[in-house]
């Protein structure tokens, strides 16, 4: 899953930095959501707040919901209801087995990608 994502990013590059960064943001957010859910099951409001608090990843909380419905349709997460002490019942999201596998695959690919880019960005050349 990770390889496909990173490979497709190269194809989409037309040389414009903001465009590349926006594509990368869009691709990475999915795996950030999965990583958050790996820490613990969360309800929508909680999850979107955590993402916006992390800074710079999401422009607005609402944009996370299309992503959530898609990864649910793809079987990477599932939802369940729980009552809350005050207020309405909450729809919780949790990772499925396939979600865990997708996340782990991305982790491996992301680490090597990030390390390679960092090294070259430092300007020291390949060590």
């Amino acid at each position, binding site marked *: 899953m990770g390889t496909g994502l990173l490979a*497709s990013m190269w194809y989409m590059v037309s040389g414009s930095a903001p465009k590349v960064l926006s594509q990368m943001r869009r691709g990475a957010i999915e795996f950030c959501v999965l990583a958050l859910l790996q820490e613990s099951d969360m309800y929508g409001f909680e999850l979107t707040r955590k993402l916006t608090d992390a800074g710079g990843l999401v422009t*607005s909380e609402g944009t996370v919901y*299309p992503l959530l*419905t898609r990864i649910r349709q793809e079987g990477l997460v599932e*939802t369940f209801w729980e009552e809350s002490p005050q207020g309405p019942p909450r729809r919780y999201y949790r990772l499925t087995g396939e979600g865990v596998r997708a996340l782990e695959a991305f982790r491996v690919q992301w680490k090597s990608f990030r390390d390679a880019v960092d090294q070259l960005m430092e300007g020291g050349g390949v060590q």
Partner: protein
Amino acid sequence: MTMTELDGIIDTYLSRLDTALAPLSTSRRAQIVTEIAEHINEGRANLPTQSETEIRGLLERIGSPNDIAESAIADEVAPLGRRGTRRPLVATVAIVLAIVLVAGDLVAYWAESGSSTPSMPNVIGLQVKAAQRSLIAAGIAHWSLTSESSLEPAGIVFLTNAKVGATVKPGQSVNLVISSGPSAVPELVGLTQDEAAHRLRVLGLRLAIVREVGPHTAATVIGEQPGVGTRLEKQSWVQIAVSSATRPTPGTPPQVLLMPAKFAIAELRSFGFSVGVRYTTTPLHGLGRR
């Protein structure tokens, strides 16, 4: 601002969101609107005060309907990281795992319930948590939850797709419909007829019209019944009084099937028809009009 006026701000937002999501598939569109509505409910419960400023601040953090729709459409057109050649392997692994999981579930049923065919317990009227515990105790492991407005208190299961006592096969998914509480009639006066129709459709409410001739060039709502803020079950009827300068096409009666009689009579009369009423007991699919 009154509570109902605050509800109106939220309803307007959700309406715009629903409209902006029109290019998506029906199910995805509905899911996104529903989940954002749930987000709003949760956020609202956390606000220090119920004021216009706070509510607008909450909606701003969520983002404009157009931004959300743009990101939803971009996501649908080119979801990153989901490309081709890995699929056969993923599919094979998925099938093998599915077989293992189903086998595991079957073993769990036998271990838990002592029989291989669980039967559906009665969960109507229970809180969601209690209903789910009931399903697990009965040996049912697959269920889905959907949310719908109804007059039942929020959080209560009021509908299921399996009869009490019916056998539930392994892998069969039982659906529980949870009430999200009743929908409140929104503020519609001042809107055009089309906007009002859309607003009500998004809430799952149905529209009856009483029209009169007036100064507005576009058919505009000048009154509504029942009043703003009234809590109604989904599929209930709301009657709007519409003022319009243009006359309706002569000879074409408006569609009034399934409306409450008083709304139907009022609508037909306002379109210039004289109305005769006959009461019969008849199965619903036999209804018609002349």
